[in-house]
């Protein structure tokens, strides 16, 4: 394990442990409002200051990390698996199957998702707990986010189908299913990894934006998305640099995951 991987391991360990230990590290919780100390700068009692309504930023970052770190990769995993299955299989089978799968993908891409999400919100009851709201949000993101990745995987799998080693295996009598799982899928891993890592920050930010449809993580529960949304109103980075902590954390975590889990030869071009 090289130095960078060790560093990534330490960062992830610290972040995960801190978020798991949020109840002990920030016992007041993410929802308590210190109304006499709103928008406060970092201090001993509030390590990252307080937000506009006096909630402890440190507590909100910890609890937000717990939610986003668990659910954004889960949604990214779901969308990547769907993309691998649909795009990879279509590319491997080729011909009519590839055309059919890509037609479905195109149809999916052309759907007016904004209106569909508004409909989804209309179908959901208003009185859902913040926890249900967050689960539904990430499930929707996972189910909708596979299309672009599927196109990439279809093309890559298509190229692999005519690769020499696949032809050789086929000529040696390797059955189709085994060929796909043993010879094609492992070679799709670099693309899959890349799609997975790209999806995590996209989903975290999408979750924040879905708030305008009433679908995001409901108040008072925090998420990285809702914390990053606060940066919208930041006029100058120099004034309140501690507000950048969620952004720095997001970058660090995504980079650490990438360093830790991807081999050099798996990094997609």
């Amino acid at each position, binding site marked *: 394990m090289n130095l960078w991987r060790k560093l990534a391991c330490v960062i992830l360990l610290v972040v995960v442990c801190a978020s798991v230990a949020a109840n002990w590290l920030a016992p007041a919780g993410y929802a308590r409002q210190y109304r006499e100390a709103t928008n406060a700068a970092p201090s001993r009692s509030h390590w990252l200051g307080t937000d506009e309504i006096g909630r402890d930023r440190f507590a909100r970052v910890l609890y937000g990390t717990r939610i986003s770190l668990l659910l954004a990769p889960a949604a990214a995993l779901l969308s990547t698996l769907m993309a691998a299955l649909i795009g990879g299989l279509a590319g491997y089978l080729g011909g009519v199957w590839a055309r059919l799968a890509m037609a479905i993908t195109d149809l999916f891409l052309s759907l007016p998702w904004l209106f569909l999400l508004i409909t989804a919100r209309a179908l959901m009851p208003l009185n859902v*707990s913040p926890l249900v709201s967050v689960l539904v949000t990430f499930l929707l993101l996972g189910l909708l986010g596979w299309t672009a990745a599927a196109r990439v995987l279809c093309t890559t799998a298509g190229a692999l189908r005519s690769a020499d080693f696949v032809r050789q295996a086929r000529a040696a009598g390797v059955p189709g299913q085994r060929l796909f799982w043993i010879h094609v899928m492992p070679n799709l891993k670099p693309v899959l990894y890349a799609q997975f890592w790209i999806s995590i920050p996209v989903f975290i930010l999408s979750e924040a934006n879905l708030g305008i449809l009433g679908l995001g993580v409901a108040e008072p529960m925090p998420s990285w998305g809702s914390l990053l949304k606060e940066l919208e109103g930041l006029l100058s980075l120099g004034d309140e640099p501690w507000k950048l902590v969620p952004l720095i954390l997001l970058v660090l975590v995504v980079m650490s995951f990438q360093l830790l889990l991807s081999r050099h030869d798996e990094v997609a071009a």
Partner: protein
Amino acid sequence: MKGWESMRPQMAGTYGKALANIVICLGFLTAQVAAQAGGQLNFCLRTEPKTFDPLKVEDESSAAIRYLTGGVLVRVNRQTQELEPELARSWKVSKDGRQITFRLRPGLSFSDGTPFSAGDVAYTVQQLMDPALHSATGDAFRSGAGNVETKVISATQISITFPASVAGLDRLFDQVAILSERSTKKEMAVLGPFMLADYKPGATVLLKRNPNYWKTDVQGRKLPYLDSIRLDIQANRDVEMLRFKRGELDLINSLDSEYFDKLAATSPQLVHDAGPSLDSEQLWFNEVAKAPLPAYKKNWFRSANFRRAISEAINRDDLSRVIFHGHAQPALGPFSPANKFWFNGKLKPQTYDPDAALKALESDGFRLENGALKDKDGNEVVFSIITNAGSKTRERMAVLIQADLQKIGIHVNVVTLDFPSLIERMTQSFDYEAIILGLTNVDLDPNGEMNVWLSSSENHQWNPQQKAPETAWEAEIDRLMRAQATSTDPKRRKEAFDRVQEIAVEQEPFIFLINKNALSAVSMAVHGAAPVILSPQSFWNADRLTVAKK
């Protein structure tokens, strides 16, 4: 008085010197205005103007353009709230409130050179009252069935007769920009200080000085001083603030309290807090009988005791202090104290007392069990508050109210929705429990709120379009609102509307939360600005503003 007495000898002793100073100062000011005349004022409109037809105005941006370009017969002075003559030298309202007669200024011309006469006023009124136009401005004049009659007595005199008496008739003409009957370019021929010169959809509206504008300053100098006004269409308030800080914009007409404080910290001379405005923020519960809500929730929401308890459990001082950084006042009732004449001064501030709120609920059979409030049938008191996504202040208000109500065991889910979805739930499906929204009030007269308080009205939000008033207090409000609308006696009208305000506070169909202060920012380059609480706050005297050359 003490101050006056101590100053008097000093003034007497230096009278001659002071007079000389005044003369010098006047001379200096005149020279300053002359030096600064011309220039372009730049500021932002938050939305695309929906129309340039002054009779069809409904949105804020179109109203701003109408204010800057339209000539009106009479104008409410935004500073004094008094009605002042403009194109009309004088006017007289008949005792029955049905007829108004204007005497017009002679010798005026529209921006395209066509002369202004009583015929133009008659033409404008006929256009305004045409039912096919669906003019919101015209709706304010519709007090009864029948046609409006206009009689041109002479080129400078006209009488307008309405089928029924219209309360506050003369003040309604503040919104009526006069059109030219003879001009071929109707919307381009204006009598206001500026005229439309260029419009790039989604980008800018350019207004240029009307060369035929009739007003002059005390020195006889032609107004307006400015050459032009450039209005950039910019919805993003962060960008607007950055551009103002960079000097690209000369003013921000309506500033959020957060930005106000940030700007005040570095440049206190640029920000203006004119005090409580007419705008209010309120919370209300769905009381619609056919709403798709469980019966027990409808019972809660239709109970005045429940609504009063919720109101008592909300800390309005904190809303004002935390959310608006002190640039808002806890609301006392339907009208803001800023409305000097119509506000009922006897209304008492709502006290914040969660214990009293809980006791009131307990008297209705509610009980607190393990930190959760339950009604007499054991249903846990849980409801959602929806508000429009993108409004940081309303989202934060909802979160503060969520925490306040948690103290008496009520669990609130805060939901933000895009505005069309919210309006659909509010006006069509009635699929909501509680809403936080704000009212932007531009009309000082209670007639402007007829559409809110009449139980048959579409905008009677908590329970709209009732065929007959469903409660005794709503019937009483209907009676009082109609009484004030048909009376021409200001004292009687005031008494009736005072009672409406009292009933509204007793019953709390709207839980009035705060009245926002009118906040604005004006660059040091702009001279003559005196921001006020009435819209348009910082450019109400645009014809007398000057901008130092950049």
